[in-house]
């Protein structure tokens, strides 16, 4: 990835340690100061600790640095505990409904005991239920004590008609929110993964009452979550999640081929391409060459690719804490925010627009005389 040196030097250092943890013992205290600060702001401090611990390196870094990481790890452990508690309550509330409940994102990683889950700071719990059981599920949860936020009519509509999830529910006094999804991308978006296929591919999880997506769908969800459904701002963690997932699942023979096939099935080749491209750029994720070859149809045009190669790192990486983010970072984030909104536009709105322009062009060419009545 192309990096802006001064704004992203600490982030670059963080990525080097992430990729090659053994370099950790060579960092000066001043360098650690910057790495810890950007890691903390990117919500990666406790996962960084887990990574160092896995390589037996916690004893090789300054004590104060290890303690800063220990503090964050204590917070992560608490959030994990709260997530598990939330899931127990959800299972009890939804059990009578006999509806498949699929864990998404962090909740799935946690329950399945994935190595990359250690040190993540879950902010909420995400579950997926079939759309035709969404109302029943919501009623059961409200009856069991969850509360829906006080939203105005417009916001309610936004969630219920346009989005892919209910307004976030919260059990009183509980630190984590519960997000109930019925698919994994906004219904108005231009990519429409098939929820039925998500459920069909799901399997029983290690926690009774819950299912998880198949590994390939977990990866694809993480890809769309970052590259279709976000503005990328300071979302390095989401990219490293993807790296963690494919490292773990990639040990399975046949995973990569299944992943590509599944992406074709769901029409999610482009977000997958982005995720693998930027992940290998950031932390040298080992992606077999044939994978990019099989995704040739999903590869973005060179111009788009060149533009995103510049903008994505600027938007995604945590900025140097010693200074305000430079103008190019702020502009990149604005651009990515615009992209996020544009991706959420229903395709028919855009198609109508394009058709309208095309027809206008056509009329001009064909009709030197009086214009034919147009359908618009």
């Amino acid at each position, binding site marked *: 990835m192309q990096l802006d040196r001064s704004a992203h030097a600490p982030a670059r250092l963080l990525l080097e340690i992430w990729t090659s943890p053994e370099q950790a013992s060579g960092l000066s205290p001043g360098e650690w100061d910057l790495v810890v600060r950007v890691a903390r702001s990117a919500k990666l401090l406790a996962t960084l600790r887990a990574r160092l611990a896995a390589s037996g390196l916690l004893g090789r870094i300054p004590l104060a640095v290890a303690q800063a990481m220990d503090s964050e790890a204590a917070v992560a452990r608490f959030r994990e*505990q709260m997530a598990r*508690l939330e899931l*127990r309550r959800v299972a*009890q509330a939804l059990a009578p409904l006999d509806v498949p409940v699929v864990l998404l994102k962090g909740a799935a990683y946690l329950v399945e005991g994935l190595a990359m889950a250690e040190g993540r700071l879950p902010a909420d719990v995400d579950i997926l239920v079939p759309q035709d059981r969404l109302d029943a599920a919501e009623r059961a949860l409200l009856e069991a004590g969850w509360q829906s936020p006080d939203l105005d009519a417009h916001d309610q509509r936004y969630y219920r008609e346009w989005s892919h999830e209910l307004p976030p529910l919260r059990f009183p006094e509980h630190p984590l929110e519960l997000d109930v999804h019925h698919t994994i991308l906004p219904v108005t978006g231009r990519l429409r993964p098939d929820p039925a296929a998500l459920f069909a591919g799901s399997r029983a999880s290690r926690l009774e009452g819950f299912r998880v997506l198949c590994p390939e769908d977990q990866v694809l969800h993480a890809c769309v979550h970052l590259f279709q459904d976000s503005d990328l701002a300071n979302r390095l963690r989401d990219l490293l999640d993807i790296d963690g997932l494919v490292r773990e699942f990639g040990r399975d023979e046949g995973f990569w081929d299944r992943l590509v096939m599944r992406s074709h099935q769901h029409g999610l080749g482009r977000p997958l391409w982005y995720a693998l491209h930027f992940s290998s750029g950031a932390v040298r994720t080992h992606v077999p060459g044939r994978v990019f070859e099989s995704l040739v149809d999903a590869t973005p045009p060179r111009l788009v690719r060149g533009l995103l190669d510049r903008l994505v790192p600027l938007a995604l990486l945590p900025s140097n804490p010693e200074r305000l983010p430079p103008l190019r970072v702020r502009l990149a984030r604005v651009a990515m925010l615009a992209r996020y909104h544009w991706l959420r536009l229903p395709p028919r709105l855009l198609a109508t627009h394009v058709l309208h322009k095309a027809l206008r062009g056509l009329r001009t060419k064909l009709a030197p005389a009086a214009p034919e009545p147009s359908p618009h």
Partner: protein
Amino acid sequence: MASDPGPPEPRWRAGDPAIRTIPLDDELVVFNPVSWETHLLNPAGAQLFEALLEGTLSLRELRVELEALRSGQDEPIREEQIEALLAELEDLGLVMRVAGHVNDAHRGP
């Protein structure tokens, strides 16, 4: 041939092997590893709970055990009092019923 023994008595025991306790004088603080909540048990509750940490006991066995511990003090304990205490502890996820009933799922908080 033995006569029908009737429905088996409910028996109780501590809910989770990972429950932690610290005795403080004659009271007991208890940590529930599932809910991460801490509870304080008065002397009667402490004796009851410690008995259930040691073994699985029926209501009758508990009364006998507690009377032995309290020997000579005040009035004898009634089984209803023990039942009430057990219900509270069960609600907190600290004790559970076994054998004779389907294991209730933890009705923890």
